[in-house]
């Protein structure tokens, strides 16, 4: 089997939507879910059968052409993304009965395009190809966030689009400079030639890459737009933004950092940028009352944490980063999906929603997710957090350690404020129960959180390999160039 299916099939599905739409109202929905399920199974099958990295050549072998590289770390992301998108789609199957999107076919196309582009970002080994997927992901996300066509949603879409456009200008600028000075677009060749460049040009390229990707990965001075987007968009789409899109950008960004710019100074800068990002986001979140915005801040904080983890450039910290990423994706998926149902039911997005909420099931899984985000032991978040703190301490960055711990403490303030609301003794609203399918989806995700927390050794081998592959620039270069 080939990794190209992860991209080609969703695209095909997208182009072929009018045909599927002929099968009635549910045809498109079920076929979309079927597609995602088969992609997920495919990824599992690839994972099981894969004994070494698979390089998928498109048209012409690298370094001249584009190749998709499926190694231990990208299969992790592929599995994660397909799984999350599948879960989200399954959830939507029921959500649409109450609150459907207008012109649903387009909605499913967007979700699939998002999936394809996220996977493309992760797999691609060509920087211009990455730019193309960057744009596909971007444009799908813009439309998704404006989909409801309310003033808020449109504002969010516009803001997202404008910042995205600026990001892509800087990214193209960086790619142009890279091509002009190195004559190649292949990541491996660039990484070989990059160190030999003039320092000024290196600076310019890294600055433009930082701005281009930084705007998308939501790092501190460049994340001014994020919260508005989350607030304006539907909670359901926020789930994808937070759990899938950002993660794909993040992986690409750090993949590029490892390949091009493994300077100690630069990564140290990123390290503190991440810590500051986390701290600021958590502090701002303290006073937030809009739930979507609140969890957007929380996402920003977690991205800061991930930034710290990946900037450490050690196998252990990357392992930690992957654990955190996994835990965060699962938890945010649970939270935003639940919020989507809750908003629809109680017609409010305020934090006091949780006082009114009357659904023990949702309460419990949201609490578990939030505790996992806080890094409570026996839940998924702890493993990563502990490994990260450990590797920070081993590097002697104790100030950073303090900053992160402080940020975590502040984070716990508003999480527990919310949990406190859930236990409030005020009068509850109507009893609210989800359909079986939705429960099953949320339960699956939550069980994932608990399982990883209790038995991290189930996946620890895999993740450790993934992280060592991710940081191993040399073997990536060999893989990509050796195929020639």
């Amino acid at each position, binding site marked *: 089997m*080939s990794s*190209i299916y992860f991209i*080609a099939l969703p*695209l*095909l599905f*997208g*182009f*072929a*939507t*009018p*045909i599927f739409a002929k099968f009635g109202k549910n045809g498109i929905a079920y076929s979309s879910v079927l597609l995602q399920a088969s992609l997920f199974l495919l990824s599992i099958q690839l994972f099981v059968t894969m004994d070494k990295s698979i390089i*998928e*050549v*498109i*048209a*012409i072998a690298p*370094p*001249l*052409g*584009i190749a998709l590289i499926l190694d231990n770390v990208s299969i992790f992301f592929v599995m994660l993304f397909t799984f999350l998108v599948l879960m989200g789609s399954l959830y939507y199957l029921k959500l649409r009965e109450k609150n459907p999107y207008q*012109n649903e076919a*387009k909605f499913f*196309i*967007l979700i699939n*395009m998002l999936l*394809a*582009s996220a996977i*493309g970002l992760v797999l691609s080994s060509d920087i*211009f*190809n990455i730019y*193309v*997927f960057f*744009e*596909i992901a971007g*444009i*799908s996300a*813009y*439309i998704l966030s*404006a*989909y409801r*066509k309310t003033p808020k949603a449109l504002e969010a879409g516009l803001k997202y689009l404008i910042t995205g456009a600026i990001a892509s200008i800087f990214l193209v600028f960086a790619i142009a400079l890279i*091509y*002009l*000075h*190195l*004559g*190649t*677009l*292949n990541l491996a060749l660039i990484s070989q030639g990059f160190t030999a460049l*003039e320092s*000024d*040009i290196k*600076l*310019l390229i890294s600055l433009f890459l930082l701005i281009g990707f930084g705007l998308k990965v939501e790092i501190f001075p460049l994340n001014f737009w994020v919260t508005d987007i989350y607030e304006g968009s539907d909670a359901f789409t926020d789930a994808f933004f937070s759990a899938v899109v950002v993660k794909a950008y993040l992986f690409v960004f750090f993949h590029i950092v490892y390949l091009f710019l493994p300077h100690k100074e630069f990564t140290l800068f990123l390290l503190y940028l991440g810590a500051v990002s986390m701290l600021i986001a958590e502090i701002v979140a303290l006073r937030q009352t809009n739930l979507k915005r609140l969890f957007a801040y929380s996402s920003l904080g977690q991205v800061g944490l991930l930034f710290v983890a990946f900037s450490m450039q050690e196998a252990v910290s990357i392992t930690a980063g992957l654990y955190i990423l996994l835990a965060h994706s699962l938890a945010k998926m649970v939270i935003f999906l639940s919020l989507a149902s809750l908003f629809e039911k109680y017609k409010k997005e305020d934090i006091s929603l949780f006082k009114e909420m009357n659904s023990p099931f949702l309460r419990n899984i949201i609490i578990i997710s939030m505790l996992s985000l806080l890094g409570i032991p026996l839940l998924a978040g702890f493993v990563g957090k502990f490994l990260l703190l450990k590797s920070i301490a081993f590097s002697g960055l104790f100030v950073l350690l303090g900053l992160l711990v402080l940020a975590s403490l502040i984070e716990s303030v508003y999480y527990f404020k919310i949990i406190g609301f859930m236990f409030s003794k005020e009068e509850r609203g109507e009893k609210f129960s989800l359909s079986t399918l939705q429960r099953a989806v949320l339960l699956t995700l939550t069980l994932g959180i608990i399982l990883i927390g209790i038995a991290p050794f189930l996946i620890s081998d895999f993740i450790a390999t993934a992280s060592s592959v991710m940081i191993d620039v040399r073997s990536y270069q060999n893989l990509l160039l050796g195929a020639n």
Partner: protein
Amino acid sequence: MNIKRDISTTTLSSFTLSAFFVLTVLSILLQNIPQKLFSAGDSLLKLNSDQGVANAVTTVVVYFRGFDTLGEIAVLFIASFGIGLMLTSQTHGDKNKVKSNFMLQLGARLLFPIIILFGVYVMTFGHLSVGGGFQGGVIIASAVLLMFVSSNHFHLSHRVVEVLETFAGISYVMIGLIGLIVVDSFLGNFLPHNISQLGLLLSGGIVPIIYIIIGIKVGSEMSLIVQNMLQRSDND
């Protein structure tokens, strides 16, 4: 001149900031003007003749970097239906519209097939000379635009466009997948492509086919965008 009155603070600060930024970038760029070096493009040029395509840019666009183009088509596709999503909610009405001149309508109708023909030509000969699917597609869309501008009764059959669009999109991916099966590479050139056929219309294997598909796709998407925007702007 009173600076404070004539130039707002915003303007001044924006000017300073952008000037400073651009000047810094400029100075770096001027100090490091790139020298010609052996690039991937040169290697591709060498490989180009194997594909039997006269226009190297076309080979690069459609074949060597065909995957990018597929993505690009996807972007266009998404943007097009995004615009459709945004702008079709209003019914298009032409109440206040001034009826256009008969001569204008007639001229436009006369020009329309010619432009379309030109577009098809550009599309079809993309692998041989200057031109290609994108250019051809846009030319076709411009013909549609002309019709829209000249006549307020012109309406693009949504059904036809949709069929074209769907057909183009599906066949693009399908060709890629067939390549995967036949020559074990997505978008692989599985049709005969011989250097001896260089310059013929039927040369270059899948390259012209894909470029035509791209042309259809771009043409229909652009026409749709034009239609959506125009219909929407009627009400403004």
